């Protein structure tokens, strides 16, 4: 049985008929070919799949796509506006906040919410805010630098 669903993805309203068991992350990656949202685990720990759902950071692997019916979803691909990088993206670039880049989209999306709630976070606050995102490459220090850089640029935008 498929379910009709309407979701605004990166500003565009899309309609789907969905098998209810399809996870939001698979809808984004497979039906929408927005493959910037990654999968790193089954248990909701790694955060590589983080997207914004009505402005809140959520793990798109721990949500059925049908639950997003009527919502607005922003993925990493929807963050840059008119070709301009989002300040958080810029921060990750400037401060070498990524190595393999696999955790990066999720890290960036969580950081965007973090700065939208706290424009001038301390290093501890950033670390705490990113506790739901694992990175195995960077050792996090440059990621925290990146978020601070973004905060300095006016952060959330």
């Amino acid at each position, binding site marked *: 049985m498929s379910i009709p669903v309407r979701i605004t993805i990166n500003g565009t309203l899309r309609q789907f008929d969905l098998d209810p068991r399809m996870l939001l992350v698979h809808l984004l990656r497979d039906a929408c*070919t*927005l*493959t910037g949202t990654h999968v*790193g685990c089954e248990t909701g720990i790694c955060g590589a799949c983080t997207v914004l759902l009505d402005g809140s950071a959520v793990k798109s692997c721990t949500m059925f796509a049908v639950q997003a019916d009527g919502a607005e979803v922003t993925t990493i691909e929807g963050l840059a506006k008119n070709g301009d990088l989002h300040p958080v993206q810029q921060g990750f*670039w400037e401060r070498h906040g990524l190595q393999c*880049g*696999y955790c990066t989209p999720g890290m960036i999306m969580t950081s965007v919410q973090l700065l939208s709630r706290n424009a001038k976070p301390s290093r501890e606050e950033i670390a705490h805010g990113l506790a739901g995102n694992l990175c*195995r490459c960077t*050792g996090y220090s440059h990621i925290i630098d990146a978020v601070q850089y973004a905060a300095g640029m006016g952060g959330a935008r």
Partner: protein
Amino acid sequence: MSAQAKKYSGQPLKRIEDPRLIKGIGTYTDDLRLPGLLHVAFVRSPHAHARVTSIDTSVAKAIKGVVAVLTGADVNEKCGVVPCAAAIPDLKLPKHTVLAGDRVYFVGHPVVVVVADDAYAARDGVDAVEVEYDPLPVVVNPEEAIKPGATLTHPDLGTNVAFTHNVNGGTDIDEAFRRADRVIKQRVYHQRLTPMPIEPRAVVASYHAGEGTMSIWSSTQVPHYLRTLLPGMIGVAENKLRIVAPEVGGGFGAKLNVYAEEALCGHLAMRLGAPVKWAESRRENATSTIHGRDQIGYYEVAVKNDGTILGLKARTIADLGSYCQLLTPAVPTLTGLVLTGCYRIPAVKMEIVGVYTHKMATDAYRGAGRPEATYLIERLMDLVAKELGLDRVDLRLKHFPAPTEFPFGTACGVTYDSGNYQGALEKARQLADWKALMSERTAARKSGRLFGVGVSTYVEICAIGPSAAMPAGGWEWGCVRVEISGKVTAITGTSPHGQGQETSFAQIVADQLGVSIEDVVVMHGDTAVAHYGRDTYGSRATVIGGTALVMCTDKIIAKAKIFAAHLLKVAPDQVAFADGQFSAPGAEKTLSLAAIAGEAYVAKNLPPGLEPGLEASSFFEIPNFTFPFGTHIVAVEIDRETGQVAIQKYVAVDDCGPQINPLLVEGQVQGGIAHSIGQALFEQTVYDENGQLLTGEFMDYAMPRATDIPEYILGHTVTPSPTNPLGIKGVGEAGTIGATPAVANAVIDALESLGVTHLDMPLTPERVWRAIHQRTVATV
């Protein structure tokens, strides 16, 4: 090497590869979409050791969307055996087929493969396959495994001992122990770890029946190894096989391998006439991608009362798991190469016993063998200092070779290229404000706090390696082409997956050729483009791969000089090259590299006897390993009530020779230290006595999070290596090698007042609490 001014090398440039990654438009293997793509999933053994008594695939085959369900009997004949390339004499190897035959040997052993139209149906198919198992006795403890009468991992091998490797070096070991005033002994367990790159493995295979060509995309560190080894497995000739490592989401050694799934996907693409994809789940990654470390060692140090170390004896039992993957048995032998660390230790004897157990294979996890060695020697230095009442830093200094003594031959049989261990130690002490730190330690202890300072002075082996020491070549290949437009394409046989060589190699090449870095593109990871290579592992890429590119640019400049001489109408030896311009005394103009490239391809005015084009390729064979080194100093405080360790200060001074891009070096060091903090304080792969893996998810395998990371104080010294024209040494593993013992030593130092002299890692709160609790109870 040309005498170019270095405009880019040494600069902390931001990375060229980043824009696509921060926009989410990089392509990892699982992001590939091919028309008609089928999805692969595996039925894996829930038992560590069992006989497979029956497999019923009928229900699975009937599921909507399921295309094929195949067992070992269907595919093993067609897929060869999973290779082990380690050159260990008398190695006993079990036959490692891609799917299990009539027995399974570890939890996660693939038994049946299901192929379906989409990943959901493939998973439904997996659930519907019925496999009956007859469980057999299990052996998980390697020390038990080598006792007479032990359960055998592979009964047909007749033993659990895969190999015994002996290191006997330097002066006479028995004499050293006879002369000793004391012998200090310690058993050390180096726990099993799971590499856990955040991107699990993934494979896509596509076969062109008309051409007989196969393309395989794999989340691998070693596309060239795959191209060398898969032909023998799946029967596609090397020159019809293209391997692509697209964006790879971290490796840490876990993807330095040839896996059953890679061969099987290739086979399935041929067999089913459709492209196939397998994306590993995290649980599969934990059960069926290689683990690291897992060595038990018994150590004895012969010392004089003044601290002089006369000799070191070791017996190491290395838990290999149930199969040898690509380098499984070679990893513990690397431990034997740097067992003496930074120190002058005249006599060494080491016996390494590789043992099979019913677990996933161990193999090269970041550091591979060297973290084990470094941890051991650094723990032993502290133990010796403690036992003899000596200062641990003085003890280390006493055994350092002087900077003038390099190249320094060790009793382990290797020659350290260059070093200034005193310099790095001194700098680290400055950065740590050593005197103040030691006063803080004294004051803290006076007030009853458990405060400790740990020091580790390490040396490691990088630039792996000279071909003589490698199973199949340790050189690296590169190619540089100045295009007709003057743009420069650099192709490397290394396979970066986060290390940033699209940037650092562009820095090197741009400097060599005097062009703008914007004009340089670095390509890698596709065997159709990078024809030869030995890939990325063992902190080798920048040193060996970077040098191969330097050799190419040297050839290009030499050829361009002939062109320039011809065009400027002077003798070739009169042409000078600087800042991208060719000039000659008395010539009225200078020529840019781009101008010469234009002439070289238009080819209407070639110097006599010279080929058109401006391209060169090179293989660099490094004469020796490189040996980066450094000092890490850590201060910790322990919560007496809970055993929780808090890192108060972290200082690292690393010497990897000249740094091409300090920002990237810093990133490598910080990332490596994070792995070390994880290993020292909480990471551990746990199997229970039945061989069940208890750390099969991120829910149970603890890794560092952002909140676990201290603020680093980082510094460096620069001691060039004589092994390569750039003088560089490599830095990919330094953090994982130097940091672990520093953290462990700090924790044990904090427990000194309780009489604790050693604890095995991970130093979890419970383990530390138990140590505190028992000592407290015992001393009350």
